[in-house]
Each structure stands twice: as structure tokens, then as C-alpha cells.
């Protein structure tokens, strides 16, 4: 599964990218009196794999929902390729739960990703291609209830990929999976990202996952970015290596002793 990835190390930085750059300027988000995000500034270059880590309730999921266009910031601006009105079209989100329609077969579920106006026959063909990418094309005609948890998330990934997104927002999509399935899914996400070149933004509270996948790790605490750490390790990354462990403990330290309000960029 990981063979082609090793060769492509660093190649994604130079190849013509399908990803779009993402810029957040002074983004605040409040729900009533509670401020969840307090002035976030962030630039993600096209094709970068950004991971966002933080404790529960730090505002990282809210940030992702804003990027995916599910919510609007209270103040501030979020722009994809310099334009702020296109989020819902250029960015796709993968949720914590698979959120498959139980009454639609697997291929029809993937076709949802092409939107309501998609031509039916063409949509199913493209769905099958996307299912082939995640290795589930032989389950295309089945009901979602017959799939395992990991398979359901792979269908959800195919649904997010079928429209060739420029930005993929991942909201802890692997959180509910068992350890082995989770590692497999991380490899799959990395592989798809390397071959498609979209900009990725993964929210997670699992530091190992963040280090495994991220070109760059942003730590969020109390609604603000408190650390911004580039990760320059060859892919695929080996969990056991000394370098990996060094980055991992650096991030963990940041999370455990939050330096509130200090921007480290």
C-alpha cells in the first residue's frame, strides 16, 4: 500500500498542484457570549498537509467548519485562492462520523458528493472511480449497514474525493476507528493526498497522527494558535524513529503546558 509513496517524497511540493491556498485573517467566532476562536491568522500554501491539534473544546473543530463553509466567522475573513465566497464549492469536509445515507447504496452515497445537479449515469461512473481509489469498488452495490466502521469512513472519503476538491477538511475522521484500521486509513489518506495534490487540513487530538501526516502542525489553545511547527520528515513516516519521537514530544509539551497567547511562528 505504501510503496509508491516512498518515491514521491517531496515530489508533491514541486509538482503542478491541484490544491488551493487557504488564508484566514483575524478570524473570530462567537456563540452568544462565548468566544470560541479569537483572532486566528493562518496561511496554508496550496497542496500543504496541515494538521491542527489541541485539547477538546479548544476551537479546532470550529475552525475546520469555518474553512469548509459550514459556518460563517463572526468577524474576519477566510479566503480560498483569495476569494471568500467559494468555500462550499472548493472545500470538502470529512466528518467524525461517516454520515452515510442508510437508504442509498454505497455508490449512490458517493454520488451525493457530486451535488444535486449531477447527471445520474455519469455520477455513478465517477463514484465507482472514487470507490476504486479507496479500495471498495466491489462493495458499490451494497447497503451501508453491511460495511464495517472503517469501510464506512472509506466510503465517506470517496464521497469527499469524488468531486476533486481543492481543499479537504478532515474533522477527526479516524477518531472512532480501532488502532489498526486507523493506521491503514492514515496511509490511505496520505496516499490519496500525494496523488491528488489537494490542500489538506486535518483536525485531531492524536499527536502521533498529526506527526504522521502533517507537513506542518498548528497547536490551538483557547481559540488561538499557540504554536506553528513545520515537520520535515521523509514520508512515509516511521513511528519508531528518533526524529519522529522528537517532534512528537515537542508537540505534546506544547499541549501539556499551554503558553497562552504566545504566537510561535
Amino acid at each position, binding site marked *: 500500500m505504501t510503496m509508491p509513496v516512498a518515491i514521491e517524497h517531496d515530489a508533491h511540493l514541486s509538482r503542478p498542484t491541484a490544491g488551493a491556498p487557504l488564508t484566514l485573517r483575524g478570524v473570530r467566532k462567537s456563540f452568544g457570549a462565548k468566544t470560541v476562536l479569537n483572532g486566528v491568522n493562518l496561511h496554508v500554501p496550496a497542496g500543504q498537509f496541515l494538521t491542527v491539534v489541541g485539547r477538546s473544546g479548544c476551537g479546532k473543530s470550529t475552525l475546520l467548519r469555518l474553512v469548509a463553509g459550514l459556518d460563517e466567522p463572526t468577524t474576519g475573513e477566510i479566503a480560498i485562492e483569495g476569494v471568500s465566497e467559494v468555500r*462550499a464549492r472548493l472545500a470538502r469536509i470529512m466528518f467524525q462520523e461517516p*454520515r452515510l445515507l442508510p437508504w442509498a447504496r454505497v455508490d449512490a452515497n458517493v454520488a451525493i458528493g457530486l451535488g444535486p445537479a449531477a447527471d445520474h449515469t455519469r455520477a455513478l461512473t465517477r463514484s465507482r472511480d472514487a470507490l476504486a481509489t479507496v479500495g471498495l469498488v466491489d462493495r458499490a452495490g451494497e447497503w451501508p449497514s453491511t460495511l464495517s466502521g472503517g469501510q464506512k469512513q472509506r466510503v465517506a472519503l470517496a464521497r469527499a474525493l469524488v*468531486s476533486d476538491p481543492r481543499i479537504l477538511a478532515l474533522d477527526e475522521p479516524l477518531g472512532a476507528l480501532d488502532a489498526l484500521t486507523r493506521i491503514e486509513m492514515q496511509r490511505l489518506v496520505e496516499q490519496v493526498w500525494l496523488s491528488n495534490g489537494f490542500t489538506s487540513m486535518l483536525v485531531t487530538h492524536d499527536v502521533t497522527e498529526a506527526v504522521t501526516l502533517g507537513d506542518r502542525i498548528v497547536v490551538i489553545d483557547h481559540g488561538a494558535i499557540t504554536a506553528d511547527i513545520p515537520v520535515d520528515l521523509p514520508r512515509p513516516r516511521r513511528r519508531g524513529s528518533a526524529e519522529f519521537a522528537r517532534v512528537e514530544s515537542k508537540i505534546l509539551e506544547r499541549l501539556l503546558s499551554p503558553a497562552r497567547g504566545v504566537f510561535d511562528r
Partner: protein
Amino acid sequence: MSDFAERPAASAWPRRFAATRRPGVPHGRPWTGWILPALIIVAWQASASLGWIADTIMPSPYAVAAAAWRLTLSGELLQNLGVSTLRALVGLVVGGGVGLALGLLNGLSRLSFSVTDTSVQMIRNVPHLALIPLVIVWFGIDEGAKLFIVALGVFFPIYLNTLHGVRSVDPQLIEMARSYGFRGWPLFRRVIWPAGLPSILVGLRFALGVMWLTLIFAETIAAQSGIGYMAMQAREFMQTDVIVLSILLYALLGKGADSLVKVLEHWALAWRPTLQGAP
């Protein structure tokens, strides 16, 4: 589809039955449910033939069958059966249609819900059969009266279950579909309607029960045709065989309607794990 063994939900049932199954005892076949009714009819016939039950109190199954044959030949049975079925269906379509429409509207629109739901709940608490005297004053004893009362009866179960079905759609699924650009009619067709359908079909099954009950009541009180009328006429002439025949017909019609909804459920809700692989 091709491989039942891959579907845990589908294979669990037969295997569980197989484990507890004793030789010679049939399980889960479609005709199993008919064994008990058949035995009762045999016992009933035996009691009648042996003279344990007086004919004027309870005619034998044979006498009921003979009455059915006699009335079929005269055309009376089919005509009354047709009239009753038609009344039931028209009442169901009118009352169910309005219930479905209002249920959907109130499930989707807060405004509509806040304006109408209180009134509907108030009317619901009046037993609709209590309106029969008033309805007779309004419509006389012609078709309108029976259709109105049947439609009113079936309206509530369909309204309530449609409302519940539409209200309880998983908001996460709606958010997911919205994030892919689904709004308005496409969102309704792909997410809200299929999510509400199981509940709507439960409403339909309740409604069918209410439908027959209401119709029988209306026909025995004020009618000049139909099965209820046939039974009331028979009472005038002490024809217990025709009375029993009418009661049996209602039982069969009710069972038939219920089976029809079950078929509909299997077809429309094939995605549900409990239904997958079921016959």
C-alpha cells in the same frame, strides 16, 4: 446482493432459528400463522356438527361458507364488498393525503407547525366516532357521511407519524447533504423523505386499522349498502350465518390490508438491516 454470507444482519436470523429449531416443528414459514385459525375452524365445525352449539347462536363454518356462496351467486356479496372497499380506499386517500401533506408541512415549517398543531391536537382528542350524529345531520346517510368519518379517522395516525418521521431526521445527515449543496426539493427527496418513510408507513398501518373500524361503525349505523349494512339486514331476519360471514370478511380485509403494507415496507425499506435478506 450476490453473497448473503457477507451480510451479518441477513444471516444471523436463519442461523439463530436453526440453533433452537427442533425437528418436525416448522418455523418462520408464511403459512405457519394460518395453522391456528384452521384448527379453530375445524373445532368450530365439529362442535356445530355434534350439536354442541345451537345454529341460531353460532352457525357452523359450513353454513357460513354456504351463505357466502349463496350471496356470491346473487351478486349481493361482491357488490357490498366492492362498495365497502371503495369507501375505505377513498376515505384513506383523502384523509391520508391531507394527513401526509399537513404532516410534511408542519415537520418542515416552524410557522405552519405553530399555527396549526395546537388545533389538530385538540381535534384529535375528540373521538371521531362521536361526530357520527353531527355528520349524519350534515351529509344525511349518503356516501359523503361515511367518507368524511373515515377520512377523519385515518388523518390523525398518518399526520402524527409523518410529523414524527420528518422531525426526527438525523440533523447530521442534513448537514452533510447541505455541505454538498443539497437544498429544497433535492434535500427533501434524497434525505428527509427516505428518513421519514419508516415512520410514515407505521402511520399507514395504524390508519388501516382505524379505516376498517370506522367504516364498519358508520355502515352499521347509517348505510344502504356495504358489508356493515349486509350484517345489519341479516340481524333483522336472524340470519346468523350472514352476520358471521360479515365479521369474517372484516377480519380477512383487515389482514389483507396489513399484508399489503408489509409488502410495501419490504420494498421501500429494503435498506434496513432487520429487513435485509428477509423473504
